[in-house]
Structure formats: structure tokens, C-alpha cells
């Protein structure tokens, strides 16, 4: 359990790492929207080049990327197989154990699984190259316009960073509580499922009480230091756009134009 690392961030000195987190989030957001309008092989090729270039520039070893993709391989696989056997368009290419595979089916299967793969690749690169705290800052900054709609943007970002800080603490606490209760004779490893479910309570009650006590302490500490909400609060980490961010935006726009020239 101690080897567990919170977040997927891999520190490296690359162009992608040094970009403003807002730039990366906006690029990924636009990319995700655009990929749903792709309908041709060449269109997908352009988008795939963009994704491959970002992967290469991020200097992230391939093994971390495949690790990030691991939970979704089965979705890609099932999508591919279902499209391959269920679509009946175009000529029959070949038959597998008596089941005809159509040309249209192959094209569709490749395209849809390509879409999934690229979607996941781009979002994985974002989280591999950006620490969660930077994403939190970017969320606060990007959502600022929604403050006018009374959406508590500052509170959202603050709660995100507080919970990031508490994840390791409470995970350790959970470990301690389970050992403490086991030493008192609580048995949650053997017995019927019903008994094991009952054994959750002596774990959850101390965990909740402990967590809420910590929350109270933190609130008192914050107010003692003069926390009064988001109004007029200055920041320790300031986000600034630099030349490389503008260059990335330009490159994205060129890619989008190229993509639409090919698609239509």
C-alpha cells in the first residue's frame, strides 16, 4: 500500500510538461469535440498524427502510457469485435468460421476503436504531464466566467486541493484503524459474507469520525488565519500564458483547418 502513488503524474522536463495547464486542458477539450466529427480515414490520420506528436514531445516512456490505457483495453476490444461482426455494409471480405466479415464492418470497427484510443490517449497524456494541483488551478481559472452564474468556482477548486491533501492522510488512517480493530479481535477476513459486511461498521465509524474531526480542525485553522472566501484572495502559484502556449494554440488551429479541409 505504501507504494501507491496518488495521481498519475510523471515528472519530466519536456515541452508538454512546461505548458500552461489551461492550454493543455483546452487543447484536450477541443480535441475531444473534434474527434466526434471525424468520418474518414484521412481525418483520423491527421488527428492521430497530432496525438502521436504530443506523445513524443511529452517524453513519457511508452510503458506508462500503456499502463494508463490498461483499464480501457477491453472497451476498445469489445467495440472493435462488435462492430466487426454486427455491421453489414459493403462487400464480403472473408469469412471467419462461417461468419462473413464485410468491408464496411472492418472500416467502421477500425474507425470507432481508433476514436476511443485517441480520446483516451490524449486525456492520459494530460494527466501524465500535469500534476493534479496544477489541474485544480487551471479549473479555477477556466471556470471563472461561470462565477457570474453563481457557480461557486473558487470553492470547487479549494475543495479539490483540500481533498488532494487529505487522500494520503485518510488512506493511512484507514490502514491504522483496520489494524487497531483487528488487534481487538475484529474479523473481517473470514466468515460469512453477512458477518464480513457487519465488520465494516467498526471500520467506518472511526474513519468518519476521524475525517470529520480533521475537517473541523482545518476549518478552525483556516479561519484563525483569516480565510474569508475567494474574494480578493491572492495566489501562491500564478498561471501565465507564454510564447509556447500561443504556438501550441496556433498548431492546433492549423491541425483543425487541415482536418476540416480533408473531411469536407
Amino acid at each position, binding site marked *: 500500500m505504501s507504494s501507491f502513488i496518488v495521481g498519475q503524474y510523471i515528472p519530466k522536463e519536456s515541452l508538454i510538461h512546461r505548458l500552461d495547464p489551461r492550454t493543455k486542458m483546452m487543447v484536450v477539450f477541443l480535441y475531444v469535440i473534434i474527434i466526434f466529427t471525424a468520418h474518414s480515414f484521412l481525418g483520423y490520420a491527421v488527428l492521430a498524427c497530432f496525438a502521436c506528436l504530443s506523445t513524443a514531445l511529452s517524453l513519457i516512456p511508452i510503458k506508462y502510457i500503456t499502463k494508463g490505457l490498461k483499464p480501457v483495453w477491453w472497451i476498445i476490444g469489445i467495440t472493435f469485435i462488435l462492430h466487426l461482426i454486427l455491421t453489414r455494409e459493403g462487400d464480403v471480405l472473408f469469412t471467419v468460421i462461417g461468419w462473413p466479415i464485410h468491408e464496411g464492418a472492418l472500416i467502421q470497427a477500425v474507425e470507432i476503436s481508433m476514436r476511443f484510443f485517441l480520446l483516451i490517449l490524449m486525456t492520459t497524456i494530460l494527466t501524465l504531464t500535469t500534476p493534479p494541483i496544477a489541474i485544480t488551478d487551471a479549473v479555477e481559472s477556466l471556470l471563472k466566467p461561470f462565477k457570474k452564474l453563481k457557480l461557486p468556482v473558487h*470553492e470547487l477548486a479549494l475543495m479539490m486541493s483540500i481533498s488532494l491533501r487529505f487522500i494520503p492522510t485518510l488512506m493511512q488512517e484507514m490502514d491504522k484503524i483496520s489494524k487497531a480493530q483487528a488487534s481487538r479481535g475484529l474479523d473481517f477476513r473470514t466468515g460469512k459474507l453477512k458477518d464480513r459486511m457487519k465488520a465494516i461498521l467498526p471500520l467506518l465509524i472511526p474513519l468518519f469520525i476521524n475525517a470529520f474531526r480533521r475537517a473541523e480542525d482545518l476549518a478552525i485553522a483556516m479561519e484563525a488565519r483569516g480565510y474569508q472566501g475567494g474574494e480578493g484572495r491572492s495566489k501562491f502559484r500564478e498561471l501565465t500564458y507564454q510564447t509556447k502556449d500561443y504556438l501550441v494554440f496556433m498548431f492546433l488551429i492549423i491541425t483543425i483547418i487541415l482536418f476540416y479541409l480533408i473531411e469536407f
Partner: protein
Amino acid sequence: MNSKFKTLDLTLGAVFVVLMMIGANIAFWFPAFKITYASGEVPITLQTLFAILAGLLLGKKLGSFSMLVYLAVGIAGVPVFAEMSAGATALISPTGGFLLSFIFVAFISGYIVEKASEPKVNTYLLATFVGLMTNYLIGTPLMYLSLNYIAEIAISMKAAVISMVPFFIKDFIITLAMAVVLPQFVTRLTKAIPTLASRT
């Protein structure tokens, strides 16, 4: 939405996000919380129960807001979702609708308990049951949409509903079993943390 959260609201909501993470991955700490079937193992998650608890303990407004923060933390790449997964892909994948529904689950169960002047066992049972129904009533149609429009697999609504029935039965049993002990749980918590008592 009124944007005035107190400082204590912010910290309580934030720790609840972490509690949600622990609830979603309880089988990660305790391999004993895995149901063994003939074909394999299904880890028990307490996600739905914790989302309901968020509504019960924090109230409808803060409870649903903390679920929103939970999703935001997950999208930011911290493995807080079930089976230690994270990222925006968790939301657009077929089961993403269930994650989104937690916001409404917390709101509705919080609403039911806030309406009742003196919460009894029946109130908790009702809140838990409605919360669980909300979870599936939002999650299943969104799964249908995700499969049809993102994966472009033509699946009928009926097939989507049928495929969720075993999961619903599993969650139903777990959640209602826990609902019976909820009053005891809530009293013991509010006794230990007096500030919570003034909220619910």
C-alpha cells in the same frame, strides 16, 4: 445556487471526497470484501451508499456539491473512482452515467431527510431506496447513450436495462442492509461530532 459555503462546509465536503474514494475502493484495502462467484470475483463498492451518506450527513446542497468535487478530482487524474481508475474517460465510458448520478443521489437523499422533521428508520430506508433508484434511473439511460453514440454499438434500451439487473440486485442488497444500521451510524457520528448534528 447560493454560493455562500462556510469554511467548515468546504473542509467537510473535501474530506467526504476522500471518504468516497475509500468507499469506492474498499475491496482494495480488504480483499475480504470481494464476492466470489463461480467465474470470478466481484469487488463490493460502497460508492452508492457513500453518495447517499453524503446527502444524509452534509445536507442536499453541500452533499451534492461534494459529489461534483469528487468527479472533478477524478477527472484531474487522481484515482478516486472504483478500481482506482481516473480521468475523463471514466465519465464517457459506459458506466460513466452512474458516476454522474451520484450528484443527484446525494441531493435527493439529502432532500428526503431534510424534509422529515424527525428522521426515523423508515426515513433512512426511504432515502436510501430513492437514492439507489436515482443511481440506476440516471446511470442506465446514460449507459445506453454512451454505448449508442460514443461506441456506436446499437443496443436497445431493453438490453441495457436487462444487463444492469444483476448489478442492481447486488447493490440493492448491500445498500438496504446498510440502511438498517444507518440510524445507529448517524447517531454515533453526531454524538462524536456535535457540529454535524446541527446540520442534519
